[in-house]
C-alpha cells in the first residue's frame, strides 16, 4: 500500500469521522465507547480499502463495522443492566437493516449533539478544543499534540480527562433548549475561533499540521454553518476565518519576517477565498441578526476590498470597531478601535483614545499597545516618546520575527 493510497483512505475516514462518531455516540450512549469502536473500524478500513476499494457509502461501512465491534466487546465484558439494554438496541440496528445513517436529518442532529457535547461549558476550554478536533474534525491525538506544541501523552491525558468529565458529570449530548441555544452556539463558535487563532499564530517555521489548524477551523465553521442552517453568527465566523486566512501567503516574507497588513502584496491574497468569505457574509446580513463575529468579518472584508492600503475605508472600520466594542468591551478591541480611528481621523485623535488611563493600565504588558502608541507618536513627530514605546514593545515581545519588525521600525525613526 503506497503512502498516497493510505493518505487518500485516511482522508475519506476523516471526512466521515464526525458523522460516524456522532451516530455511534447516540447508539452507545458514550463518546468514549464510540471513539474506540470507530477507531477499530477505521483501522480495518485502512487495512482493507486499499485492496478492495473505498465502499460507496464509507461512513455507513465504518459505522456498521464499529457497531459489530462494540457488540463483540460488550458481550465479552461483564453484562450489567445497562449493557443488556445497549446490546439489544445495537443488535436491532445491525440486523434490522435499519440504517440510521440513511436519515440525513437524524445524522445532522447527532452531529450537532456531538458538537454541543464537546463544547460544553462544564469542560475547560482547552479540553473543548482538543475534544472537538479529535471527535468532530477527526484529527489524531498525535496531530492535535503537534498542532498545539504539546507532548502527545499530555494531549492524550487531556482527552481522557475531558471524556471522563463528560461521563462522570453526566454531560448530555443534546441540542440545547431554545433559550440556551444562542449562548451555547457562541461557546462552540468561540472554540472554533480559538483553533483558528492558534493556527493563525503559527509561524512559517512551525510544522504544517500547526498551520493547518486554520484549515481545520474553516472546515469546522463550514460544518457549523451547514448544521445550523440559518445562524448568522456562525456564518460570520466562517466569513471571518475565510477573509483572514486569505492573506496567509502575504503575511510572511521570504526571510520568515512578519509583513504587516499595510505592507502586504495584495496580489498574493487568495481572491477565491475572499469571494467566498464575502458571499457568506452577505448571506449572514440577509438574516438581519447582527453580532460580533459578523462585525469582525465585516472588518476583514473592508480590508479585503481595498486594492491598495490607501484605498482602505478606515472610517467604516472605525465604525465597525465602535459597534464591536459594544458587544465586546475588552481592552484589545478598544485598542483596535483606537487604531482605526487614528487611521480615519488622524494620529492625535487615536492617541487621545489610547491615552485613556484605564486602557493604558489594562494594556500595560501588551506589546501591540505600545507598538500602536509608538506608531502614532512617530506620526505626530513625538520621536523620543515613540522610541520609548517601541522599546517597551520589544521588551514585552517574545516572538523573534516580531522583535525584528519592531527593531526595524525603531531604527526607521532615526
Amino acid at each position, binding site marked *: 500500500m503506497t503512502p498516497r493510497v493510505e493518505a487518500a483512505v485516511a482522508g475519506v475516514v476523516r471526512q466521515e469521522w464526525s458523522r460516524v462518531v456522532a451516530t455511534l455516540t447516540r447508539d452507545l450512549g458514550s463518546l468514549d465507547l464510540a471513539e474506540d469502536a470507530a477507531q477499530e473500524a477505521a483501522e480495518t478500513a485502512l487495512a482493507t480499502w486499499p485492496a478492495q476499494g473505498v465502499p460507496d457509502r464509507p461512513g455507513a461501512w465504518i459505522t456498521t463495522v464499529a457497531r459489530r465491534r462494540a457488540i463483540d466487546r460488550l458481550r465479552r465484558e461483564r453484562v*450489567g443492566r445497562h449493557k443488556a439494554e445497549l446490546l439489544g438496541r445495537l443488535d436491532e440496528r445491525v440486523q434490522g437493516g435499519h440504517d440510521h445513517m440513511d436519515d440525513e436529518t437524524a445524522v445532522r442532529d447527532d452531529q450537532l449533539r456531538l458538537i454541543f457535547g464537546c463544547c*460544553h461549558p*462544564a469542560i475547560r476550554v482547552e479540553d473543548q478544543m482538543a475534544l472537538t478536533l479529535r471527535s468532530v474534525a477527526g484529527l489524531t491525538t498525535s496531530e492535535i499534540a503537534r498542532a498545539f506544541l504539546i507532548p502527545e501523552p499530555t494531549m492524550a491525558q487531556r482527552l481522557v480527562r475531558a471524556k471522563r468529565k463528560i461521563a*462522570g*458529570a*453526566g*454531560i*448530555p449530548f*443534546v441540542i*440545547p433548549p431554545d433559550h440556551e441555544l444562542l449562548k451555547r452556539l457562541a461557546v462552540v463558535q468561540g472554540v472554533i475561533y480559538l483553533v483558528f487563532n492558534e493556527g493563525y499564530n503559527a509561524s512559517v517555521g512551525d510544522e504544517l499540521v500547526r498551520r493547518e489548524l486554520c484549515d481545520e477551523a474553516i472546515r469546522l465553521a463550514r460544518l457549523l454553518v451547514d448544521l445550523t442552517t440559518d445562524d448568522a453568527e456562525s456564518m460570520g465566523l466562517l466569513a471571518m476565518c475565510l477573509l483572514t486566512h486569505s492573506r496567509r501567503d502575504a503575511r510572511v516574507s521570504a526571510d520568515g519576517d512578519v509583513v504587516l497588513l499595510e505592507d502586504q502584496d495584495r496580489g498574493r491574497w487568495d481572491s477565491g477565498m475572499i469571494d467566498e468569505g464575502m458571499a457568506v457574509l452577505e448571506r449572514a446580513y440577509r438574516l438581519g441578526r447582527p453580532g460580533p463575529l459578523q462585525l469582525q468579518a465585516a472588518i476583514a472584508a473592508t480590508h479585503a476590498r481595498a486594492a491598495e492600503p490607501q484605498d482602505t475605508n478606515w472610517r467604516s472600520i472605525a465604525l465597525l470597531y465602535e459597534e464591536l466594542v459594544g458587544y465586546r468591551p475588552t481592552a484589545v478591541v478598544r485598542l483596535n478601535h483606537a487604531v482605526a480611528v487614528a487611521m480615519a481621523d488622524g494620529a492625535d485623535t487615536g492617541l487621545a483614545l489610547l491615552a485613556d488611563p484605564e486602557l493604558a493600565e489594562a494594556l500595560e504588558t501588551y506589546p501591540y499597545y505600545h507598538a500602536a502608541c509608538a506608531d502614532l507618536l512617530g506620526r505626530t513627530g513625538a520621536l523620543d516618546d515613540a522610541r520609548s514605546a517601541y522599546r517597551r514593545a520589544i521588551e514585552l515581545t517574545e516572538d523573534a520575527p516580531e522583535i525584528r519588525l519592531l527593531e526595524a521600525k525603531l531604527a526607521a525613526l532615526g
Partner: protein
Amino acid sequence: MKYLALIYSDESDATANPPEGSPEMEAIMQDYFAFGAAGGEAGVVLGGDALLPTPMATSVQVRDGETITTDGPFAETKEQLGGYYLLDCENLDEAIAWAARIPHAALGTVEVRPVIEFEQD
C-alpha cells in the same frame, strides 16, 4: 443521576449574608422556601440543609489513633460552605438549571458535584 449542590458564599459579605432577622435576610429565606417547594414538587430536590456559619464549625482529624479537633473549617477560603441540596436530575444540564435557581448562585457560588452511585450487583 444524583448531584450535590454545595452552596458557597462570603460570610463576611453583608449582601450575600445579611443579618439574621433583617428584611434582606427574610427575602432570601423566602426565595429558599420557594426553591425548595418547586424542587420538591418536581421530584428534583431530595433534601437539603442550611448550615450554621464556619465559626460554629469544628474540624476533626485522626492521626496515629489520636483524635484531633480544631475550631473552625478545614481551610480558610474566600467563600464558605453555607448549605447544600441533594438533587436528582436527568443530566448535568438539568442539575445546572436547578442550581442556578438557588438564591446564593446569584450571591456566591454553587458547586454541582455528582454523587457516586454504587451499583447493586
